């Protein structure tokens, strides 16, 4: 009798556990189904490989009214600097100039040039110098900023910036091939941006 009772108890517990796993990735499954189906038809013996969607948290849907905070994900190759942080505003150094992003900003894709990224949360402002990358603003007030390198402004050495600027200006004047000229120009751009970041 005890065995039967434990059997009865075990089954609902198992199904509860199975149900809790199923709620982990609701939306992601539908996207991959066509892939899984075509895979199973052609290659029935091997399990289909996973796709990135199954490893990602689904993004929140677009709200009907403008939310009060902007959710920012700021990622670098070696770290996620900010992930799903709620802030008031970010100012990104787009190629057309400093662009301010507030909650409810229209969906945008913009390329970044070397410059200062500032994150405004309440009264505090955190500034980073970013080397370049992309910024996406989605309709649901989520901003993704992907940069190759970013440093907080207080870690930059002003004297090295001046030295670098002088070095690259000299390289540009002595450059012969287009490639060298382009490299020197990039160096000058980055260093002058660093300079203005430190001063301005």
């Amino acid at each position, binding site marked *: 009798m005890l065995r039967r009772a434990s059997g009865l108890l075990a089954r609902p517990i198992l199904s509860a556990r199975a149900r809790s796993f199923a709620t982990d990735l609701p939306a992601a499954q539908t996207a991959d189904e066509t892939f899984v189906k075509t895979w199973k038809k*052609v290659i029935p013996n091997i399990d289909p490989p996973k796709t990135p969607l199954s490893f990602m948290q689904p993004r929140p849907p677009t709200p009907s009214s403008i939310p009060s905070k902007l959710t920012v994900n700021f990622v670098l190759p070696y770290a996620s600097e900010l992930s799903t942080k709620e802030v008031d505003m970010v100012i990104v150094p787009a190629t057309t100039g400093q662009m301010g992003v507030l909650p409810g900003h229209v969906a945008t894709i913009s390329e970044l040039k070397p410059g200062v990224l500032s994150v405004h949360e309440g009264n505090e402002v955190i500034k980073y110098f970013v080397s370049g990358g992309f910024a996406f603003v989605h309709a649901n007030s989520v901003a993704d900023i992907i940069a190759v390198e970013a440093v907080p402004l207080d870690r930059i050495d002003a004297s090295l910036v001046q030295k670098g600027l002088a070095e690259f200006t000299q390289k540009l004047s002595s450059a012969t091939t287009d490639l060298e000229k382009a490299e020197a120009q990039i160096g000058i751009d980055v260093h002058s941006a660093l300079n203005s970041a430190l001063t301005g």
Partner: protein
Amino acid sequence: MAMAAFRREGRRLAPLISPRPITAVRSSPLPPTHEDEGPIGVRYISTQVVRNRMKSVKNIQKITKAMKMVAASKLRAIQSRAENSRGLWQPFTALLGDNPSIDVKKSVIVTISSDKGLCGGINSTSVKISKALHKLNSGPEKENKYVVLGEKAKAQLVRDSKKDIELIITELQKNPLSYSQVSVVADDILKNVEFDALRIVFNKFHSVVSFLPTVSTILSPEVVEREAEAGGKLGDLDSYEIEGGETKSEILQNLAEFQFSCVMFNAVLENACSEQGARMSAMDSSSRNAGDMLDRLTLTYNRTRQASITTELIEIISGASALEG
């Protein structure tokens, strides 16, 4: 318990009381009885062969145990970097979605594998998945090419798909992996290979014992524009305003290249983690098997040794009793 062991020994030795003990013949693959020096007429059964095997198995066990430790320390170093880089590809998938089943003319399969072996089955899994993707995307007017990263996949793919391989890149891990190195490799691939869709096949590091083969799809800017106009998953890409003086196609081009280098970076790190984890478990099972083999050999060694002692005793005793009466 000791009496039971003795009884068992007695039972085992009973059939051996014959001029040529059978176990000695069974345990040595070489022709039996390597005659040692001794009084004439006395034969020593040689335990040399078993002893040699035991020595080599013990060495193998030590080596595989050391390799496991090395793999564990390398895994620790690279695991944190791989987990930190996981945020890198998520914005791109959030923006462009994931279209593994997209229908394109030219698809290039980038297979990421390790340079060194002894890492279990992960390289074979990657190659199997790559070949399956090749088959999945084959059809009239469609071509599939391979770009191979790593020696192990190169060895397997060169055998039957040599004409489809565009580019082979090896020795990626000679210097510690960095974003600049991977972006150089990505640049190389983008310059030399024409593609409509790039499929990166790698093993994603899920945990120390589980590695999931994964395929990440990156579309070329033309395909992205085509899909955006067609609607569907990329349909709302048009609703995104392009900030900047450049045209939409230039931005999409830069976006695709940046996406490729970011996804490659994460893929290479995850594959390196999976390689170290797989090597750890392979070396662990190898040292465990060596330990088992050593136990079995020890038993055989003891049996052989005891059999030789018994034979010697019997010969002496029977010789003595023959002299007496």
